[in-house]
């Protein structure tokens, strides 16, 4: 399997004794849907410098856990979260937490590209506008261009910024969604199976992009493809039945899993 964890191979075992403070730190987080426990006391630290991949069989709670990180699960009436999630040391589930601001800091990209039915420009400008990030039209233009550039979409769309975002191809749409998330300059970007609806070429393009964004943002990516996790991430967390089974350097997880369950999964005994 192809690995591209450049300078990090030698650093300390990921997630547990890493240098520097964690960007996001979850402590014994449990999530319930009504009566049903979907996540069971998961503790994990996420760092800005790495791309962290969540893998695991379908229904193991990857998406659920991801959505707790920016409180998107607030939109599901039956969902309830226990435990503590710290963003830069502050609990995001404390009562005074401002969800709007939180989500500006922790952006999200979804499985199915969901551009707004607006122009490409407006798709990107939406976030900066509502948050009042841009002071002027030219500043806004600047932000739009830069976000599209970072998402590697600028060259393809610069001549048709007024076209509808929904008129783009699937891969372009997904990059548009990433650009949209970047535009508010978040600190963390969460991606829930961002490539599962895309063809291989588009997928490759997104993977490259993730690699380029690494370091600037803490990136968490959920994927069902172990190959993808291996390709893009430096840290991997393996979930199973709502538990975090193993978390560590991607290279270690794939070549030398410590738990039997991880090994079984990696070698395709299930999933």
């Amino acid at each position, binding site marked *: 399997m192809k690995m591209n964890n450049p300078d990090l191979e030698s650093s300390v075992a990921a997630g547990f004794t890493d*240098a*520097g*403070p964690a960007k996001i730190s979850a402590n014994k987080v449990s999530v319930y849907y009504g009566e049903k426990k979907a996540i069971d006391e998961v503790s994990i630290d996420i760092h*800005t*410098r790495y791309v962290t991949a969540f893998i695991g069989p379908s229904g193991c709670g990857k998406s659920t856990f991801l959505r707790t990180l920016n409180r998107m699960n607030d939109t599901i009436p039956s969902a309830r979260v226990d435990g503590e999630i710290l963003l830069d040391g502050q609990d995001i589930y404390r009562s005074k937490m*401002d969800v*709007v*601001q939180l989500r*500006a*800091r922790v952006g999200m990209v979804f499985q199915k590209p969901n551009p707004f039915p607006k122009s490409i420009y407006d798709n990107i400008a939406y976030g900066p506008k*509502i*948050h*009042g*990030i841009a002071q002027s039209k030219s500043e806004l233009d600047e932000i739009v261009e830069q976000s599209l550039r970072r998402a590697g979409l600028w060259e393809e769309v610069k001549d048709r910024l007024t076209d509808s975002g929904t008129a783009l191809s699937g891969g372009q749409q997904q990059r548009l969604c990433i650009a949209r998330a970047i535009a508010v*300059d978040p*600190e963390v970007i969460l991606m829930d199976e961002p490539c599962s609806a895309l063809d291989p070429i588009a997928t490759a393009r997104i993977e490259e992009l993730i690699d380029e964004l690494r370091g*600037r943002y803490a990136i968490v990516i959920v994927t069902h493809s172990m190959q993808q996790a291996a390709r893009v991430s430096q840290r991997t967390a393996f979930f199973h039945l709502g538990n975090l089974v193993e978390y560590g350097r991607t290279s270690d997880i794939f070549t030398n899993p410590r738990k039997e369950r991880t090994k079984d999964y990696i070698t395709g005994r299930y999933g």
Partner: protein
Amino acid sequence: MNTSIPSDADISRKARDIRLAARLEQRYAAERRFKYLAMGSVIFSALVLAFLLVTMTANGLAGFTRAELKVPVDFAGAGLTVTADRLAQPGAENALAAAGLPDVLQFAAAEAYGPDVAAQLGSGAWRDLARQLVADPSLLSREATVSVPVSEDLASAFRGDGDRALQATARRLQEQGVFGRAFDWGFMERADATDPQEAGIWGALKGSLLTMLVTLLLAFPIGVLSAVYLEEYAPKNKWTDIIEVSINNLAAVPSIIFGLLGLAVFLAIFPNLRSAPLIGGMTLALMTMPVIVISGRNAIKSVPPSIRDGALAIGASPVQVVFHHVLPLALPGILTGTIIGMARALGETAPLLMIGMRAFVASPPDGFTSPSSVLPVQIFLWSDEIDRGFVERTSAAIIVLLLFLLVMNGVAIYLRNRFERRW
């Protein structure tokens, strides 16, 4: 890489966060304003409705009552030559009239309260009395005090309007305890009349029932079938577009134009059926059908394609797929559209004016082909009556129409829930 030195990115983020926080106050204020505005609209609409309903009920309740005078009548001594047996047969009322019942009543009233009051008995008072006699033939053999309606003049005098002398009379009678307003069950049993005291709503109500039945029986199947055709089978071509445009257009065409169509086409084919619920129903069906088609198509569209695929994949034919799977699932949605369409048809006046349903029909319709009026037209006609007694009757008729509407909606909602539960 040293994480303790803040990077450019971190600095710009700090600045951003400050700006962001500054705006938040405003944004939350906007959020609250928006929410209250939205809530306000709902409340406003509900209040208007409540206001309308309350005023209408307040005005209309009186319409279910009428002024009645108690008259002692000695039937035994009046020499009515009608036997109790005759009363059991059809045409008993006319037999009583022929036997002089109106005069007997007139006489009894004059005896009891003087000729002035007797002159103020309702013109159809004897008919009421006849009905009471038919209901209780034993009255014929004894003396009894019966309640009969009075003329509109006396009734309005009772309200404090009109002639001063009559007002005094009304007051006097009321003090004697023989005059007052009583609930008028007959309002729900009689048909139109020129005297508001005598007028009833049953004729129009029955007309509405018959008309709606025709509308439903025509518009529902045709609407559903065309919705099925257009949504499931129609090839995407020019002809389909034409059908689609005509249907959308028909949903938007002002109702009066359907009246013109009914006049020019249906009444040309069935000239004898002017004013008949059959023609009214056909006209309204054309108006209702497109609404059912449009909502039906939406309902059909919202049945997940996976259900169709599942059925096709085990060898169901396209027709079976639709009739076994799609239609049952779409039914609740179709019913919703049908309610909306039927409710509109129920309240429709203008097109029915064109096809003769504004006729004065003094007896309830016998069937789909006999002349009739319908509730909204009756309301329209009564609202234009000279007699002021009709003001209350009009409001009462409105209440009846609204109740009809509620019952219709209730039935549809019940059906909808039932179907939803079954799956």
